[in-house]
């Protein structure tokens, strides 16, 4: 709620000290850190969240009037702690747990308040990441909690981002927080034996947020820039908190390099533009530079993990000024390596595409056909789309059309569907031209188009 609240407050005249937009920026940037610190102090997620909201609301009232405090972060945390104490005292039905919290918090604040207000606020967000991304929580709850707690998004904003009703999202968050409390999901950096697995889980959540924005799986938009930005923000937080981790570095690089192509990936009419057809001048070259630097440092620190390798692949694309200059042999080698360290049918599909570009569509198609024979990707529209594309490049139009049709039946994002429909229409028309397919009634308009084109090319 607080963000919406902050957004609605008009700019206080004569108070350039802390304009609401600056406060909103501060809220966005620091909410996660404030909440993490408060959870540490209070040992209670809900109480910390309520107190943080109240403190930011108090800032909204006081800062324009009294000026921004010297240490705003410490001010917020100190105020929130007082709000929490008030709240605990007000609550007549103190249960045992809250009574214990109150005792600890009051003991802790025996130190003079002024001293506290000036002390640096420790960064506790790493603990919070591991709590939010705990594998004992449902995947969608992990994503929602991370966006709420670390990015400061409101329940309404998260609900909108994932196209679910706000009430359903609120339920999801309530349930997740209840499980954290009841099952006592720790608020701690995992022990060494659990750390690699938990770190991987956290990165998967961050990449999921980014990908939901970048490769929108449902609905009308091609890209949800807001979700991409939040994914990158989470990636930056993780990178900042564990700078020595090559995979955290690789993950951030991967997201930056993908996101750098965002503007070129959607045409003016909202249609999807394939990598090879993109106007590379529209790429964000500043962001690419940052991504490339991160890839370098991720690859320097020992054997590359899956995110670093995927980032390296994105880097090869990013470095080609023209599609024809793409080093496909390098990409093929990187995918081959990726298959070794993280075998999966989807990686194999990408490898097949790289092979097709490096060594001709026939070689790539062979790999896709062997994938298809195993039936693992039968429901994956991109497998059928990739197969169709290679058949198209080989001029096998009728088979390409069949494959596009299967892909179309499986796709759920609107722009991708339109793209595949265009490709299907084209393949069908070409098949007709080749006299391989008799148009049926439903294909009439497309056959007409093919007829017109044939006449045009004849003329």
């Amino acid at each position, binding site marked *: 709620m607080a963000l919406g609240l902050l957004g609605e407050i008009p700019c206080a005249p004569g108070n350039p000290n802390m304009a609401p937009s600056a406060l909103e920026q501060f809220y966005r940037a620091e909410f996660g850190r404030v909440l993490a610190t408060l959870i540490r102090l209070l040992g209670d997620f809900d109480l910390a969240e309520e107190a943080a909201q109240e403190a930011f609301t108090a800032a909204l009232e006081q800062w324009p009037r009294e000026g921004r405090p010297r240490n705003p972060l410490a001010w917020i945390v100190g105020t929130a702690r007082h709000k929490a104490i008030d709240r605990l005292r007000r609550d007549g039905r103190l*249960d*045992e747990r809250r009574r214990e919290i109150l005792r600890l918090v009051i003991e802790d604040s025996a130190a003079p308040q002024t001293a506290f207000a000036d002390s640096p606020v420790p960064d506790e967000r790493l603990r919070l990441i591991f709590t939010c991304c*705990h594998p*004992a929580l449902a995947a969608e709850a992990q994503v929602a909690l991370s966006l709420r707690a670390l990015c400061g998004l409101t329940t309404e904003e998260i609900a909108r981002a994932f196209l679910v009703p706000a009430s359903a999202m609120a339920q999801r968050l309530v349930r997740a927080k209840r499980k954290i409390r*009841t*099952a*006592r*999901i*720790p608020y*701690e950096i*995992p*022990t060494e*034996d*659990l750390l690699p697995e938990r770190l991987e889980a956290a990165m998967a959540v961050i990449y999921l947020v980014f990908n939901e924005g970048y490769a929108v799986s449902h609905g009308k938009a091609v890209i949800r820039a807001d979700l991409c930005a939040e994914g990158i923000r989470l990636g930056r937080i993780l990178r900042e908190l564990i700078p020595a981790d090559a995979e955290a570095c690789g993950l951030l690089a991967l997201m930056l390099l993908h996101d750098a192509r965002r503007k070129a990936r959607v045409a003016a009419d909202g249609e999807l533009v394939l990598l090879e057809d993109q106007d590379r001048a529209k790429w964000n070259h500043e962001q690419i530079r940052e991504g490339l630097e991160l890839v370098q440092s991720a690859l320097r620190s020992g054997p590359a993990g899956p995110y670093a390798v995927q980032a390296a692949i994105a880097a090869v694309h990013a470095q080609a000024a023209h599609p024809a200059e793409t080093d496909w042999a390098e990409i093929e080698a990187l995918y081959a390596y990726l298959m070794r360290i993280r075998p999966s049918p989807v990686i194999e599909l990408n490898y097949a595409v790289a092979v097709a570009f490096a060594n001709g569509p026939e070689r790539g198609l062979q790999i896709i056909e062997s994938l298809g024979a195993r039936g693992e990707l039968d429901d994956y529209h991109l497998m059928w789309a990739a197969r169709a594309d290679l058949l198209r490049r080989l001029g096998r139009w009728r088979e390409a059309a069949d494959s596009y049709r299967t892909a179309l039946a499986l796709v759920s994002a609107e722009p991708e569907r339109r793209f595949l429909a265009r490709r299907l229409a084209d393949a069908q028309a070409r098949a007709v031209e080749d006299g391989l397919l008799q148009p049926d009634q439903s294909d009439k308009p497309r056959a007409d188009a093919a007829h017109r084109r044939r006449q045009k090319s004849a003329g």
Partner: protein
Amino acid sequence: MQYMLLIYDSEGRKLSPAEQGQLMQDYMTFTQDIVKSGKFKAGDPLEATGTATTVRVRNGKTTATDGPFAETKEQLGGYYIVEAKDLDEAVTIAARIPGARTGSIEVRPIMKMGG
């Protein structure tokens, strides 16, 4: 904080006498370990579901029927109650139960009753 670790496994799985002996040995080692660590509160194996009876009271009338209430691939075969500081510790203990290697362990926090 106490957690109940419910051990689910397939009763139908056939074990050779040697495997059976090894499994018993593994359970004994595990149990001794957690007893020694002070985390053990309770724990028992259960007789097979063929011996189970399900009881319901509806409109004041008691019915007792054969078997567990649900047909599942894995059956409840035993339990431990352990003391752990948080879920991560409980999960770490659960992962050491021999049954985790073939079946699955459900980790449930035990509700603290007020008063």
